[in-house]
């Protein structure tokens, strides 16, 4: 086992043509915890996600996963280490069936993903595991539906199932409850709690009640920098945080 912290960033910065989106962010995510990243719009949360998952190269700073420097890796490489993200808008493969969606997550382990001469029937060995995962997110009955026909909340659930298929060490969830009705939010919160057992989760979330119920640690960002960090009770009393959120936390 590595260190206490599964993910660490050291003075991470990202500039876009003179505009500093992320400024000197040093983040430490404890192994096995649920860590939330909050802050007003434009605070740089999604950019941090993009940096950690290598979708953007940092201007300066370093990123360590499990004690290994992953700053220069390619996104797919980092993903294979077990850092799996979700996206703000639902990240599913709309014209594949629900089962196929999950199987995409599973099939890399077979090592046949470049085998264009093999039948896709060779993937059927993964079906049982895929159904288990769908079961876990309550989607088993939709297995053969084309994903585009699912309601929104179900798509988010499917996305989580696909992410779980990767058996990730660190899950990065970008606004998992965005745009959901009240009922759906409740289901997703339960789901996250369920799947976070034995895993580490870093999430960006606007819904403060979700954050309050789920997270062990909260990092508040504002204008690219870290404003405060700590458990919810502590952070929610921080006067600077209150100031940042008054007037902007109306969403």
């Amino acid at each position, binding site marked *: 086992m590595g260190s206490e912290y599964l993910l660490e960033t050291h003075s991470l910065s990202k500039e876009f043509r003179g505009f500093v989106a992320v400024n000197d962010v040093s983040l430490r995510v404890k192994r096995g915890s649920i860590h939330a990243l909050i802050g007003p719009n434009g605070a740089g949360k999604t950019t941090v996600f993009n940096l950690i*998952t290598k*979708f953007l190269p940092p201007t300066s700073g370093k990123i360590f996963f499990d004690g290994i420097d992953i700053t220069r890796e*390619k*996104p*797919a*490489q980092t*993903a*294979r280490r077990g850092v*799996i*993200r*979700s*996206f703000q808008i639902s*990240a*599913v*493969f*709309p*014209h*594949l069936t629900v089962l*196929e969606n999950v*199987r*995409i*997550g599973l*099939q*890399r382990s*077979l090592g*046949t*993903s*470049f*085998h*264009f*001469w*093999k*039948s*896709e029937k*060779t*993937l059927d060995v993964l079906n049982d595991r895929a159904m288990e995962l769908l079961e876990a997110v309550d989607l088993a009955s939709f297995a053969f539906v084309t994903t585009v026909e699912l309601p929104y909340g179900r798509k988010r659930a499917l996305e989580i199932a*696909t992410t779980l298929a*990767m058996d990730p060490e660190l899950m990065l969830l970008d606004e998992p409850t965005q745009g959901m009705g009240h009922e759906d939010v409740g289901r997703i919160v339960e789901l996250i709690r369920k799947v976070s057992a034995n895993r580490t989760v870093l999430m960006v979330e606007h819904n403060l009640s979700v954050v309050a119920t789920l997270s062990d640690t909260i990092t508040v960002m504002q204008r690219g920098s870290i404003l405060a960090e700590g458990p919810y009770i502590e952070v929610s009393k921080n006067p600077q945080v209150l100031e940042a959120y008054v007037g902007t936390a109306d969403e």
Partner: protein
Amino acid sequence: MPPLKMNAVAWGLLVVAGLAAPFLVYPVFAMKILCLALFACAFNLLLGYTGLLSFGHAAFLGTAGYVTGHTVKVLGFQPEIGILAGTATAAALGYVIGSLAIRRSGIYFAMITLALAQMVYFMSLQMPFTGGEDGLQGVPRGKLFGMIDLLHPLYMYYFVFAIFLPGFWVIYRTIHSPFGQVLKAIRENEPRAISLGYDVEKYKLTAFVLSAALSGLAGATKTLVFQLASLTDVHWHMSGEVVLMTLLGGMGTVFGPIVGAIVVVSLQNYGANIGEWVIVITGTIFVICVLAFRRGIVGELAILFKR
């Protein structure tokens, strides 16, 4: 009808129609359809199943044609060696163009492939062995394995069919393979595929090379059929034509490009008298396809059958 059963029926139809074709239509015409259908299917592997619009696919068709023609006519090899040489060259060219082009996506991808194909066109006009504007004329069909005289139209037809079927099967199999699943995932949502640990560039490049090689196979065969390799096959109009075949037949459907190729080649052949109207009619088909008919012939039929 469930999709699997529908595919089986389509395969059956394809094989029966393919075997009977030379007795129903003019064999050379049928051969041209087979060559261009293979080309369109190879193109569809990229456009329909990987989501990449290449506007330079004529480069592979044409280059393979020249190489095959040169190998058979000037170097005096047997036809099967010529076809192998043409296909291999197209694959190599596909690797070069693909490595450059897949770095970008969307419209940029289309523009880079177009630009690189224009360079190939220019080289084809310049290189001494292509015969420039006159093309490489009088390529002998030769004897297959030194035995079967391909000048006989029926022998030649079944030889072409014997190339088409496995070529098409490779495409079909690719679409329905573990690799094809990943391609579809990339088409549907590229960032998500990356975040699931797939090196999408490698997959795109593999698909590109595969598509280029099969396009080359089509071009090599076409050269033997017509005993001619010319600039027509490297010109960007040919790249546009293959888009039309795919769009008309139904992009992202397995059999669509074949239907598209049949329609387009028939128009070309039997419509040879309409003169100026050729262009207007072609344009109209494009417009209608885009505005009202985006699934293409096979796509619309599939929907009809599902109901």
